[in-house]
């Protein structure tokens, strides 16, 4: 697997600086506060509106759906800048990263014209409904089911760990449209767009260990989903979902969730002119630099249509362990007293990083599951 290297064009560099200067201005105006893990836990619909006004939601999508037809690399740069400054982009994140590409690939014209422009205007946020109370890593075992009725489907069941479902309008939901067949575990699953404000849908918060509301259980009781809200082909839900995984796994959000902490310790060590600690920090910098090269290489390869399942899964497995390791490394470089409301930014970012870290290597595929996937792909190919 030979990956492209991570150079950017002049235009791309220019775009990066444009994004950066916008974000720095917003930060100075206190539109948002830098925080670690903000891409998933920093849900701020007003801020998403501002991003939409820049034309930065659905950046790569066709103009006719409200997009800018920019390259995936431009979107990569945009995303990186959000992460580096710790901007609260969680509200539109899923719709931008997953729903848009899914509909562009499998959606009907009607679905695209209806949803995509609304997403780009930050009027319409999406959640993902995959896990269920008893499924965990074993996604093929989902049991939320949809029964065919006149003009649509009746959905019953429950999803769990759906991030930000309380702020989202719709949910791409994986449901069983044919009975479970143990010899063909991945068949009989379908993807539907569920309106979270429909009758029969109830959203129950699950408090994160910090006490914050973050993810939810979502219950369905005879929820009617019209036929025009089916995504792609009935029974192909598993395959359709998998196709997007490389995008989801190899993005900069698997490396940079705790970057603001790294930035802060760098600034402190410079102030201290602390050679000894800076020597240690170079190891983190080298790790980050090389992970970023890999992630960018995968992004470029994806744009060229290459096969990237293994390196993409590697970015997720290694990158999330890296972002998780940052607070543990930082505490060896200086003394800290992490609290969520600390005055010192270092202490605050430490607290955010420590408390959010456990999720990094669980969400979106546990490290254990990824190891298995990587090994199987390596052995077979």
């Amino acid at each position: 697997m030979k990956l492209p290297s991570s150079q950017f064009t002049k235009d791309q560099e220019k775009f990066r600086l444009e994004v950066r200067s916008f974000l720095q201005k917003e930060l100075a105006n206190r539109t948002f506060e830098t925080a670690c893990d903000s891409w998933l836990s920093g849900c701020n619909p007003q801020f998403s509106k501002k991003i939409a006004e820049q034309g930065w939601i659905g950046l790569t999508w066709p103009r006719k759906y409200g997009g800018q037809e920019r390259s995936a690399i431009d979107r990569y740069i945009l995303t990186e800048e959000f992460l580096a400054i710790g901007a609260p982009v969680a509200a539109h994140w899923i719709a931008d990263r997953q729903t848009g590409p899914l509909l562009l690939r499998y959606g009907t014209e009607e679905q695209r014209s209806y949803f995509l422009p609304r997403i780009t205007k930050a009027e319409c946020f999406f959640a993902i409904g995959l896990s269920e109370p008893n499924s965990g890593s074993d996604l093929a075992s989902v049991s939320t089911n949809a029964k065919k009725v006149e003009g649509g489907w009746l959905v019953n069941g429950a999803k769990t760990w759906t991030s930000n479902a309380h702020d989202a309008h719709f949910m791409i939901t994986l449901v069983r449209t044919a009975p479970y067949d143990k010899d063909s575990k991945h068949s009989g699953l379908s993807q539907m767009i569920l309106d979270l404000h429909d009758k029969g849908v109830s959203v129950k918060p699950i408090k994160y260990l910090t006490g914050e509301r973050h993810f939810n259980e979502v219950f369905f009781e005879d929820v009617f989903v019209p036929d025009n809200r089916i995504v792609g082909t009935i029974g192909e839900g598993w395959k359709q979902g998998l196709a997007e995984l490389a995008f989801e796994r190899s993005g900069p959000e698997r490396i940079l969730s705790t970057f603001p902490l790294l930035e802060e310790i760098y600034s402190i060590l410079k102030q201290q002119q602390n050679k000894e600690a800076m020597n240690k920090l170079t190891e983190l910098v080298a790790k980050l630099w090389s992970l970023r090269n890999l992630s960018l290489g995968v992004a470029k390869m994806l744009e060229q249509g290459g096969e990237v399942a293994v390196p993409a899964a590697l970015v997720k497995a290694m990158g999330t362990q890296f972002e998780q390791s940052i607070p543990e490394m930082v505490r060896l470089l200086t003394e800290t007293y992490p609290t969520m409301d600390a005055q010192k930014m270092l202490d605050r970012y430490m607290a955010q990083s420590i408390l959010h870290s456990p999720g990094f290597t669980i969400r979106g595929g546990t490290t254990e599951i990824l190891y298995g996937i990587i090994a199987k792909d390596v052995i077979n190919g």
Partner: protein
Amino acid sequence: MSEIKELLVNTMEKIFKKHITKETVDLVDEGQWADDVWRILKENGLLAACISEKAGGAGGDLEDLFSLLKMGGKYAVPIPLMEYIFSNYILEKFHLAPTDEMITYNLSDTPNCTLSENGEVSGAFPHVAWGRYASNLVTIAKGSGGNYLVKVPLKDALVKEGANLAGEPRDYIKLTAIPVLEKSRIIDYEQLEEMILLETATKCAVIAGTLKKIYESTIEYTKQRQQFGRYIHRFQLIQRHIAQLAGETVIVDSAVDNMMEALVEKRHRHEIPLTRIRIEEAIRTVSASAHQVHGAIGVTYEHHLHHYTRRLWSYRDEGRGHLKWSQKLSRDLLQSNNSMWEFLTTY
């Protein structure tokens, strides 16, 4: 451990088990005082452990004290158990009177608090454990000719509430010319160091108990949770976590026991720092492995795991931590004439 000690531990554990539930521990996050727990531990004499009977305590030796502290850690006890006991223990050790009023402490090897000629204390302390609930504070104050251990009333102190990562009260306290209740004779550097050693030792015991709880609870989870049609303890990658959890737990347990014996025999100068330094890795490994095994359920507030992991993440940055202890031990090693092997085998 003698049989009588084992009996004592079992009795203690029964009390803790009965009265300290997930909901009781939740009270801390809700900013409430777990009065039942306080009352029951007090009624059972557990708060007076290791204070001599003549000073109004319940007697007992260091082994009892450490057993109690481990238990406190194991149950994430939602009251200032360690702080109360340690404060009184220090008071008695330095010939001041223990108290049965609520008391906490603040120790630093560079006291930023002064004691005036007329016996008034002024100074500010960040992060005082359970400060808002305490009637008294034990601390070190710089007075004429040296440092003193002082007991100060808090009713006229300025208190700004704060919390550590576990939601436990860690309050900013400011004292302005508060008359001391009692003060010790001048405390020299070695005595101050000794207090900090003792504080670190008690913390290590609490942490050992917390680690043990996480370990046991994670093992239990692997026996209940199924994935892909099997109990998860049957997967090799989970077994690796189990082995690492077991390893770190037993290592720390044995380190704390050895440290405690060293304390009894007054050869604890290096054993306490060594334990504290070693605990650092245990906290990192155990909290990470336990969360990884639990998956999403473990990061919910509903599940009890975070009560223990958040405490570990808090405790490791309170008091004198591993960085300072490493520097201390490092200094001794640089000055030693012994070989490493002699250092390890000479008591």
